[in-house]
């Protein structure tokens, strides 16, 4: 009788441990997927770069500065890898994007006819939507990171993680400017 209870208890503990172990792996996969999504969204900018280059040719006074910002953004995007969670590289890309957008905003003020053109406005709208998606992807990544970090730090998960999974905390991405890119707020 007692042996049966002990065996039942052991089986129960084993099931709980397996569930926690699998939960940690699932949440880690969600973090990696979230990161890959951020990179996918960032790389969407590559599609915009040829259009931007075309537009900047028209900003004669500002062309050099904008071209160098585009080059900086392009090389930053190339450094981002879906397999490696590198928030510093992401921060650099976001910085380059902000710099480019600020440059464009200043440049366009000197060319009112361009500001009124449909192609330019569509391009700016597309870039704004891309930035929103990047901001949202970062937010999803951070949510997944928070769930993962909670999943390895709360008891008894911390015990299972230290013995079996041996995963370490993932640092969420914090960039107020990138998050501000996600303009949509529910009113």
């Amino acid at each position, binding site marked *: 009788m007692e042996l049966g209870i002990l065996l039942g208890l052991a089986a129960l503990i084993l099931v709980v441990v397996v569930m926690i172990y699998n939960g940690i792996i699932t*949440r880690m996969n*969600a973090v990696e*997927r*979230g990161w*890959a*999504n951020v990179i996918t*969204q960032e790389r969407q900018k590559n599609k915009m770069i040829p259009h931007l280059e075309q537009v900047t040719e028209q900003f004669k006074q500002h062309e050099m500065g904008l071209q160098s910002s585009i080059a900086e953004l392009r090389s930053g995007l190339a450094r981002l890898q879906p397999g490696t969670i590198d928030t510093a590289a992401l921060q650099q890309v976001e910085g380059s994007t902000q710099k480019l957008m600020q440059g464009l905003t200043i440049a366009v003020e000197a060319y009112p006819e361009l500001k009124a053109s449909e192609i330019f406005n*569509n*391009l700016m*709208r*597309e870039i704004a*939507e891309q930035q*929103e*998606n*990047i*901001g*949202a*992807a970062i*937010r*999803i990544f951070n*949510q*997944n990171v928070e*769930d993962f970090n909670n999943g390895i730090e709360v008891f008894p998960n911390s015990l299972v993680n230290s013995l079996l999974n041996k995963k370490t905390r993932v640092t969420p991405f914090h960039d107020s400017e990138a998050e501000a890119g*996600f303009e*949509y707020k*529910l*009113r």
Partner: protein
Amino acid sequence: MATKNPNSALAEAIAQFNQQLPQIGNKAELLRLLDKLALLPQPIRYHYKQRWYLCSAGLLLSILVAVLTYQLHADTLLYYIAAAMALISLIPLLIALHHIHQLNKFTKQLYWQNALLDNQLTLLKKADWPPTAHWLQQFAEFKRGNYKREFKQLIQGQFTGSEHSFAYHYWHFHYVNRRTEVSTNSKGQVTTRVVYDHFDRYGLILPFAYCRNLFITAFAAEGIKGERYSSDSGRFNKLFQVRAADTMQAARFLKPAIIIALEEQAAALKQLNLAFSEQGELCISFADKNVLDSQPAYGLDQLALFRQSIEQPTALPKLQQLLNTVHQLLRHSDSNF
């Protein structure tokens, strides 16, 4: 000629204005109705103080008669007299309560009419309803209920956003489930009874050309088919189930900004579902009945303040939030080139 009792005059006026209310089509007409209300003796309220006293006295007297009858072991006929006195005292009280209820209802109705006008909403009469049969056929949402299914209310609206404008219908759907309950009493006798469970769902229907055959559900109805899809967000996956005829289409539609917008919307509306039909219509449904609710801050007894609140635009924040979400879905689904 005898002068009319002020309470009866007010009751008559309210009944008359109540009939005019559904015909009001713009703010100017609504303000004209308030002008007519301003001609009534102010403040607009019933004066039932005397009636309260008389009714209270009548009730106390009937209690006293009943107590004395009990203590003096008097004829039981006195009990009946006491009960009759209590009933007679209660009748004017009930009439007064009915009048007060009517006045409050009218105030709320007036304010709601104003909220509809401010938000470009038109309550449709049944004769003006669009054919609902194709909605019932198109969306699994309306296949709920094994006994009865009916639309209770349809309101037509128009949203103008920075990039997209669209017409929509707000609907209130009622359905009834019929089931048989079997119970056994302590003597082992089995009895069966038929139980009717009533439910209500609310939502919007609008044209949505950028996505078809996709179902995002927190409270799925039966009959939704398609391949299952999981998004990149663990929280979104906990909130919603996604089914699509083509998972690639689901992946394309569920951009991060849309996922976050729907997560936030799900925090504001219970049992939120989105169904994109094959015919290019979007049906959003939820359990919250207060999306079009708007409560007046003042009653008609403070007519000047009530008028001021009517003159200000009345916001329906929950509806606005939902429409902004729809606008967000449209913005991120269309092509900018």
